[in-house]
């Protein structure tokens, strides 16, 4: 029997004391234990970015992060960025730009955009492409997603 680890982590502003299997990924912890299914499992090997979450201000592939690494850390998922009933400006930009089709990559795209804008409020086209290169979309062809990011930048000014 593998010894479980006690961790304390903050997810979307709420503090959790959890006993976790050392092999469990942060993605599994979020989806299976906390029922936060907005974080998607695409490739499960760090290629697609569908599982992107913000861990202490940095965007990570939660499939490649162990749950125990979230001990004493702050995690933000797609469920944690809207403000009450109102959408976060980035979420609204994605809706308004038609950047959402099947929606599977959308949470990851939005969180990567958020982490980028928190770090660089006025990114160049190159910055946007650089940040989003780890998030794959099979529907939109990316141009609507870039439009959405540009609209979000415009709104935040």
């Amino acid at each position, binding site marked *: 029997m593998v010894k479980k680890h006690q961790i304390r982590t903050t997810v979307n502003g709420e503090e959790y004391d959890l006993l976790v299997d050392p092999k469990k990924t942060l993605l599994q912890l979020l*989806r299976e234990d906390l029922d*936060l*299914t*907005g*974080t*998607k*499992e695409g490739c499960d090997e760090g290629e697609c970015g569908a599982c992107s979450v913000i861990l202490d201000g940095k965007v990570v592939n939660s499939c490649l992060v162990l749950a125990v690494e979230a001990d004493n850390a702050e995690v933000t*998922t*797609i*469920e944690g960025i*809207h403000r009450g009933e109102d*959408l976060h400006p980035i*979420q*609204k930009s*994605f*809706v*308004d730009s*038609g950047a*959402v*089709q099947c*929606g*599977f990559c*959308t*949470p990851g795209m*939005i969180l990567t955009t958020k982490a980028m804008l928190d770090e660089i409020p006025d990114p160049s086209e190159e910055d946007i492409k650089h940040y989003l290169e780890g998030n794959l979309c099979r529907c939109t062809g990316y141009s609507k997603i870039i439009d959405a990011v540009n609209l979000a930048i415009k709104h935040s000014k």
Partner: protein
Amino acid sequence: MEQHSAVGKRIPHRDAVDKVKGSAIFTNDIKLKGMLYCKILRSPLPHARIINIDVSKAEKLIGVKAVLTYKDTPQVKFSISPTWADKLPLESDFIAKS
């Protein structure tokens, strides 16, 4: 100009808001009471003939409810795309990955 209900108008994607909030439910997000989980065993060889599939050990494992092979599926060929035309649901005797 004739008025249309959709043409020329800005129609928001009907479930875009649920999708940007992460609350849209995809098949993988569904959990049902007593739900069973399936694991697919793929051929370790790219080009081979199936002589026999012995499922007796797998069936004895704790928690295993069923093991399905081609013998349990209807032998009706079907297609989901031209590349995969005339395929059985599970291969019966010959494996050739294209």
